[in-house]
């Protein structure tokens, strides 16, 4: 039985929950996997810690929350400070260089990637920051295929924004492929 647990953490409005949904939906619709996605957030529409949990498995998933992630994604300092200690030993940590300064060294493979800066520089619109993240996550984990993610985007994204989203996904995938583990 294979099982992969992820936590997507950031601030409300960054699209972390949307990114989590796209990953889980892709796994179910195009990869024949089982998935459960849940989220926790406060009452505010923007700001505050926003967190989404995803479990991918080839077996039934009963408990839907993640207590120890195999993969932790942190898009803000607050999210990093809150969750970097709960990562599974040997797990994967993806943090954004623009928003997160790494402090203690968790026992994890750490990838500190310029996701936000790349999106702003190459596309000029931070709204697809979360899609760029998905590209990097795909390249680093292979949890789903890149073309499966593209299919989900094609289904979900309005056509006039599709090109921008596909570009963000490709940029993320390149960052992931070229990335090196952060040396302690």
């Amino acid at each position, binding site marked *: 039985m294979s099982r992969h647990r992820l936590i997507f953490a950031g601030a409300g409005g960054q699209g972390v929950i949307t990114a989590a*949904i796209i990953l*889980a*939906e892709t796994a*179910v*619709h195009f990869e024949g996997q*089982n*998935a*459960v*996605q*849940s*989220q*926790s*957030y*406060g*009452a505010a529409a923007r700001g505050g810690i926003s967190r989404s949990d995803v479990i991918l498995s080839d077996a039934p*998933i*009963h*408990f*839907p*929350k993640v*207590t120890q992630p195999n993969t932790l994604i942190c898009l803000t300092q607050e999210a990093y400070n809150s969750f970097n200690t709960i990562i599974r030993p040997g797990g994967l940590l993806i943090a954004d260089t623009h928003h997160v300064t790494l402090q203690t060294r968790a026992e994890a493979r750490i990838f500190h990637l310029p996701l936000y800066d790349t999106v702003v520089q190459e596309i000029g619109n931070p709204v697809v920051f979360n899609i760029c993240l998905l590209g990097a996550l795909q390249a680093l984990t292979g949890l789903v295929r890149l073309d499966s993610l593209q299919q989900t985007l094609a289904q979900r994204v309005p056509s006039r924004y599709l090109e921008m989203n596909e570009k963000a996904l490709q940029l993320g995938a390149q960052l992931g492929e070229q990335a090196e583990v952060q040396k302690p």
Partner: protein
Amino acid sequence: MRQRTEFIQGNETCVRAALYAGLDFFAGYPITPSSEITEHMAAHLPRIGGSFLQMEDEISSLCSIIGASLTGHKVMTATSGPGFSLMQEALGFAVMTEIPCVIADVQRGGPSTGLPTHGSQGDVYQARWGTQGDHAIISLTASNHQDLFAMTVEAFNMAETFRTPVVLLLDEITGHMREPLTLPREGEIPVIERLRTSVPEGVDYHPYLPREDGRLPMSDFGGKHRYNVTGLYHDMWGFPTTDPKVIHGLIHHLMDKIENHAHEITRYREYYLDDAHTVLISYGCSARTALHVVTSRRRRGEKLGLLEIQSLWPFPAELVRAKCEHAHYILVVEMNMGQVVHEVKKAVQDPERVYLANRVDGEFITPTDVRNIMRLVHGRGV
């Protein structure tokens, strides 16, 4: 043909199921964590020629669906604890006037406005006793989307069969969670239509004269027949009365039509109960945690089983008594200060075997929480 698999929230699952059951009228007032039900109803209903009303509050929401039901529609509203509190008077009216309707309560932390974005199971007794006076009620719940779909359809079926409001008790966890749902084909789950009177137009119709089987055929209000509807004790014409014989008969009818059919209403799932020394009893989101504990501990050879209750009211006391007969320990897993646990204690022999395994801080109860409580109960420390 391959069946369609959706990856959607529990709240949207509830909407798909309601439409499958033939819902064509929804009125509601959005409230977290139930808002997606209202949102998706607003998107879907106009496309199929149904009616969607956003009301000014929860009181008018329930009142308007009661009216719509009386005119022949299949109806529903959705809310959370604070809104469900406001609905209690109208809920009693629907009980007394025997008007079919479905109320989804997606539970959040209470009392009062409490914890809007966090899960809870604190409304089990509100569903049962929130409205005043002796009455019976049907309340259903589910822990996963496939069962939630089925239970929602069943809620509409039972509302029609027993002419009663049915409370669908969901929670923030299952309501907001996304997981795969295989959409049932048309006809795969039976859909029960309203029993309408065969009394022709121009002939006296008695809205509250039961048939021999106890059922009351309805006539679409504003259609062929004129009749009265009141929340007061009423006679077979629907007019108010203080006649002790009529009052005695009506209150017994309201109780018996549901309580005497408890065995038909009972819905549950069971896992590994045959040789279980410790029986977990749970429902809704907590049953997911309980099932996680049971399946993982079974792999280690521990004799643990789960009874997942899907029909909370009328409480399936006979079922619980039978399934717990040989249990050494009974743990009720729920996210409140103890509600179903009291019903279990009343139901079983030797109620000192019954313990509460709960969590009430807004966080979803974890397998570790349940395992720790279980270790304490077994006298092994945490």
